[in-house]
């Protein structure tokens, strides 16, 4: 299914709910993350992908093209190119490597973000299981 399509999001919700352990994988965290994915082919559009986690349980996964998710005031905002997010999702690059290579920019408390980064990679490896067409 097409990456970041409505169908993909629904599958992502289901698969993360099934496979991620709130304590082991998401460290019982309560936080929110807004990914701003830029230069999406073919037209170079921008997509906002919002994830909200409460006590290690993903409670929201939302997509938007208008920027309305900015109003959610996410604790962390991660911005980067489409290809970078694809590489992260495919497991070719960790979120942290993307960060220290300046491939993504992060807004928010960095120490807290770094603590959460392993959980993000767990989430991504879970999403990797979805048969995705990039």
């Amino acid at each position: 299914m097409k990456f970041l399509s409505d169908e993909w999001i629904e599958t992502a919700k289901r698969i993360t709910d099934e496979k991620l352990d709130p304590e082991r994988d998401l460290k019982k965290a309560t936080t929110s993350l807004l990914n701003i994915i830029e230069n999406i082919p073919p037209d170079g559009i921008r997509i906002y992908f919002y994830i909200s986690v409460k006590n290690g349980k993903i409670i929201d996964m939302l997509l938007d093209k208008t920027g309305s998710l900015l109003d959610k005031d996410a604790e962390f905002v991660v911005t980067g190119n489409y290809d970078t997010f694809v590489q992260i999702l495919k497991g070719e690059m960790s979120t942290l490597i993307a960060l220290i290579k300046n491939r993504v920019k992060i807004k928010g408390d960095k120490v807290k973000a770094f603590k959460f980064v392993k959980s993000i990679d767990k989430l991504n490896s879970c999403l990797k299981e979805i048969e995705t067409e990039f």
Partner: protein
Amino acid sequence: MTNFLSIKTFNNEIYINFYLEDTILGVEMTSHKVLALEKTSFKGALEIAKKGTHCGMCRFDFLGSGVCPAGIKKGFLAYWPQGRMEIVKQLYSGRIKPTEKLKDIVQSCNLCGFCDKQCNFTTQLRPEKVARALKEYVESLNESDFLQVPEDDIVKGLRKIVGEEWATNDPVIISSYTMTIIPKDKELNYYIVMPENEEQVSKIVKFANKNNIPYQPRSGGTAFSAAAPTILVKGISLEKGIIIDMYRFKKLEIHPESQTATVGAGITMFELQKEALKHKLRALAAEAGAHVCSNILTTGIISTWGNKYGAFADNFIDLTTIDQEGNILKHSDWERKNPYSTEPGFTNLCLSPNVIVTEAVVKLHPVWDDEKAVLVPFDNIRDAYRLLIKLGKREVGLSLAVLSRKYLAEFLSPTLQISKDFNYVCKNFLKLNYVVSVICNKDEKKVLEEMVDYTIDEALMKSLILGAPRFSDLRDSEFMKILSEEEDPLKSIFAGPMRNHLEKALDPSPENVAQVFDKDLQDFFKKIYSKPEMTDIVWLHAFRILPTRMMRQQMFMGPGASMWTDDEDHYINWIKMFDEMGEKYKLEHSLGFISPLDHGKFAYMEYDYYYDHNNPDECERISKSLIESMKKTLIMGKGLTILNYLFKGIYRKEHVLYPIPKAISKEEEDLFDELIDTVLGD
């Protein structure tokens, strides 16, 4: 299992190219005479190429002996001696196959031998032999052996921006960038583009973003080459995408009235220093081959002149940068958001530049007629450190540093073996372990001489340079045995009656030092060592052509830190920690240098681990020592490791060095472990 690939003729001899288990082993010939010659040539070429460390000294004229004409004309690394060496390695390993461009690469080389002179001075290698072997190999191939590389849409787009000849997707050219931005084990999924102005860079960045292709700028690539064989490669390298080679940014203008220079990103420190000196001016200088703009960006130019001339954003009055959206920005734009600050703390880790610096307007400083070099020898680090910091705080001297014995030995010795013997003599007989090296005016010289018992003057330093081979020979001499029994051998040799004996024993002359080089290069080196600057310690400090000798046929990694100087014990403990790390991981190791910064309040220290970049086991040990030493530096506090201020050179030193970092907590230590595991672990 051997699979023969092709049989052909060249110069009436039959060649057989063969693959063994998918690895090209070389070119053999059936004629016994040529077989022997050719075997040596190709194998010898490969051995030379493997020892190369990509120091980049073949790309500028540091000896006044000429520079590779093909490289100047064509630009791409493949056309330079270091690139040809890399291509031989890549062909041999089977990573690349010959392409049409390879013909052009070998034809462009006229075997002028400039590279042999330059490379031999620093590394004792002979890259011309590699070029010759590559030429002979290519000439032995059939037309059908050369791959045609089709132009794809990306290279078409890049060529629209920079012109037909300055962008390529040719695998042979791309492979020449291995170890200086491309990891050795990555697929060659790259493009090389060589823009000549910031508008082109801006367009390339926008083009890359639009097409979702990562990109990274490259200047000299030397810093990368030191990190490439280690675990750092993952963070520092470009995994695929567009390499923006900045070589064509050759603008260099000196403005004597404002004592500044406009410097393009393709200009090396040596080139800037040479032009500045024509106006009796001097730039804050990193190593000769370092590129000015990238060095500013990477580390803010760490130099022994830093206490007087500054560090980080002190170095420039303006920068032209291209940001990640492709916007062209100048630091002098008064309306822009503060470009001089950066967030503090260990989480501010950055292993790639977040902007591309295309041009800098750097500060220059006057060169005085009465400048002198004075070296003060020490047997222990604590006393050397005390003197250095005292001088730094009192702002005595233009250039200030503690140099280790190992540094002295590497710099002054024309060959690797002589450097080892030189080091041995200093350690075991003279107890000369450190020198405080000071470049100062004549008044400061008097002040310094009143502070210490004795010094090594310029005349004796000149003798040590021209007499280095003889000095090393003294390791088995009676003279040294007698000297070592003196109560203070340093005083006896540098300020006592033994000095004259030493001068005599050294028999210093350009002829003598030239004799250690290959026979066909001896006349050349006699002329080189006859040049006044080759024994002028002030010139050598400013032009820094000697530090590359640390990379002769081996690699070094110099983790370091800028540390608060007020706690002397703490500082010494840092050095001990690096020393213990070297012992633990069985690496050749030594303090490199210490230089004060910011009126002596901080001092930068480089601690060097030397390793064989062709030995995977040593590379692994280097990697472990890097991670462990970085963690320990964070735990110890009061200092910033090099990894913490990589790519922060464009910021004010006040924002990089302050607040003085505290030792990290246990919780942060655990987080660091987790980060390292995530970033570098596999």
